[in-house]
């Protein structure tokens, strides 16, 4: 049944409307239809009195007048879902942004829905192999888990995300859904081109609500992408990699919406519903009995302050964190993941196994010692270290070089074919380096290789 009404006030993207009889429920979608102009969609956030509702528009309200007709079917906003979305770039409404044909399929899913019940969720018991050595060893991901990528501009965040998508699509035989929230449009375009170049776009859906969109759209775009991903997971039983860039922008959009609604701000001006808003999004990202879902989320840390309320709340949902380091990137060691700063809840002997755990602890010890000695080496030189420290530093340097890896998505820049390395091989290789079996090999020999098996039989010093 269509509920009809009219616009009574427009302030920015806050639209108030009067309905005859029943008001559309909170969370329902509404469409304002200004005469001679494109319709303006919004979402109901409040009921002012028995006949008036307040909505936040998800599109520009330019051209909207008081008295313009409004209609609602009382249902949440919906987005097209299904296999025809694969290879496409869409916005919040499912409109094609890639210049392709419009998506007018039958299947549409609501943006807002409750998270899967506990009984249908799948416990995250085993590690998910990314094929990226440094991640699999130091901060492994689990099926149904969420990992965050922290890092400033230019340290290779997008490359890691893209390689992740590539490897996940290849290994999971599944699909990837990318939610672009509040970031620059140029970055979205670059990602789209990169995925096309790598030949994985045909198994990927990009859903964008970038910086230029109104806060209402940026706040909902994550839910739209999630609705698309949930369809693949629950209806088609496929494994899904759900990538979000950037979770902080989602929180920021929520803060703007909250301000527009006149809610009392909470800590540092964040919305009072910060925890609930994050839970709405994060709780739905999980593996179910029907299909697997792994999520990788880029998180901007304001002023590098990890105690910011948005960051502390987001941390609660993460299973692992990959910290990209500018220092490591400056040394040309890619992926520039800092193994000592990154962490994972999956680093449990029950999940990764005893051997992996032992090798990991020893690798951390060696890299940590190297970290301590770096300034001393730069002041005095290697030859002034004790024999034991020299050996430790040599092995740490070999380890750091070993953790570089040719990526599929960078083949065109490096000219080197991409490599995926099974986790058992990584653990075995790292154990070999720590045991000194590569001490006679030059450090450069281990740079940008897949596994140690690739090395020449005779060591080359260098």
């Amino acid at each position: 049944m269509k509920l009809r009404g009219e616009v009574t006030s427009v302030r920015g993207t806050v639209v108030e409307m009067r309905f005859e009889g029943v008001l559309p429920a909170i969370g329902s979608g509404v469409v304002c239809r200004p005469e001679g102009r494109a319709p303006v969609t919004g979402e109901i956030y409040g009921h002012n009195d028995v006949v008036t509702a307040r909505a936040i528009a998800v599109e520009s309200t330019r051209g909207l007048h008081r008295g313009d007709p409004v209609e609602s079917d009382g249902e949440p906003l919906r987005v097209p879902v299904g296999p025809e979305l694969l290879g496409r770039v869409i916005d919040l409404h499912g409109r094609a942004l890639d210049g392709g044909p419009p998506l007018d399929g039958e299947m549409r899913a609501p943006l807002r829905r409750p998270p899967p019940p506990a009984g249908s969720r799948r416990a995250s018991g085993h590690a998910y192999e990314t094929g990226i050595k440094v991640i699999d060893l130091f901060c492994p991901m689990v099926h149904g888990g969420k990992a965050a990528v922290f890092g400033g501009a230019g340290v290779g965040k997008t490359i890691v995300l893209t390689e992740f998508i590539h490897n996940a699509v290849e290994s999971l035989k599944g699909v990837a859904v990318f939610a672009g929230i509040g970031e620059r449009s140029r970055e979205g375009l670059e990602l789209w081109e990169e995925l096309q170049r790598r030949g994985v776009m045909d198994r990927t859906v990009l859903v964008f609500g970038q910086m230029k969109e109104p806060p209402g759209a940026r706040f909902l775009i994550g839910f739209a992408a999630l609705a698309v991903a949930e369809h693949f997971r629950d209806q088609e039983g496929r494994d899904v990699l759900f990538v979000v860039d950037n979770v902080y922008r989602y929180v920021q959009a929520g803060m703007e919406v909250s301000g527009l609604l006149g809610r009392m701000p909470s800590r540092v001006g964040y919305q009072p519903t910060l925890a609930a808003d994050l839970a709405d999004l994060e709780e739905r990202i999980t593996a179910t009995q029907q299909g697997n879902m792994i999520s990788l989320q880029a998180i901007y840390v304001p002023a590098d302050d990890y105690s910011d309320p948005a960051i502390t709340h987001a941390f609660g949902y993460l299973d692992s964190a990959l910290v990209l380091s500018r220092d490591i990137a400056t040394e040309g060691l890619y992926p520039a993941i800092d193994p000592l700063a990154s962490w994972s809840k999956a680093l449990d002997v029950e999940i990764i196994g005893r051997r992996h755990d032992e090798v990991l602890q020893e690798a951390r010890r060696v890299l940590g010692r190297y970290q301590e000695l770096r300034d001393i080496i730069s002041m005095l030189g290697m030859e002034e270290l004790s024999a034991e420290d020299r050996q430790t530093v040599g092995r740490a340097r070999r380890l750091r070089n070993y953790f570089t890896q040719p990526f599929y998505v960078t083949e065109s820049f490096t000219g080197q074919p991409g490599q995926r390395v099974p986790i058992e091989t990584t653990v075995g290789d790292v154990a070999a380096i720590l045991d000194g079996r590569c001490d006679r090999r030059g450090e450069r020999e281990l740079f940008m290789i897949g596994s140690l098996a690739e090395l020449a039989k005779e060591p080359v010093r260098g």
Partner: protein
Amino acid sequence: MSRERVLQRRLRTLATLEEAVGALRSLSAQHFRAARAPLAAVRAYRDEVHGFLGVLEGSGATSPREGPAGIVLVAADLGLVGDYTARLVHEALALREESGQGPLLCLGQRAVAPLAKAGVRPAAVQPAPTSVAGLTSLLLPLVDTLLSLRRDGELESLWLVAARFEGAGEYTPVRVPVLPVAPAAGLPRLASSPYCGAEYLRTVVVREYLYVSLYETLLEALASEHGKRLVTAEAARSWLEERIEATRRLAAAIRRETSTQEVLEVVVAARAASRK
């Protein structure tokens, strides 16, 4: 004073401390390099002098005589080296226990108290060397003192107890026998000279040997001490960095609370004003 201001002051203090420790670290690195650089040349010269003693006397060995063993303990006078002095004192006391109650000469005031605690009073105490530049002025009178003690029969053998360098931050307290001079292998004896008597030559060369052996040991000890101080300063700097980061986080949290309070006050006041 507000908590925020206290934290700002603490941050400034920590930053100043970090600068001071950083400067100390750089100084240690410089002294370390200065001590390590001449070591190879000094060792070569010591071997040469030892060889010349051999040429003088066939083997170079000074004749062993029964008598008290003297000890020169090379400790440190500056801090930030952990248990450096304590370990050396321990080694010197152990040696003294084994070799009899000969005179103990101490380089470094800091060793006097632990020695006194063990009931040992040094025959002489001199400041410990802090840089290579100061070694010469320290060594010349020390060698003279040792030789006169030997002449007077107060010591027949001499040991140096000092730190042996084993890498930056790593050292082991060692005993270095200096007198009697260990024999050098198969050297032809020098023909007698009408210009200079063998006894005079022997005295001069033994003095030189003693001087260069002490110099070498002191260089090693300096390198060990400054290496240890460098590593300790580095650890202190890392700790200070962590403290600064933690204090910054705390200050940021307090600032956040303050700004939240201000935002709330503005909002509440605006609402109250709009109701009037």
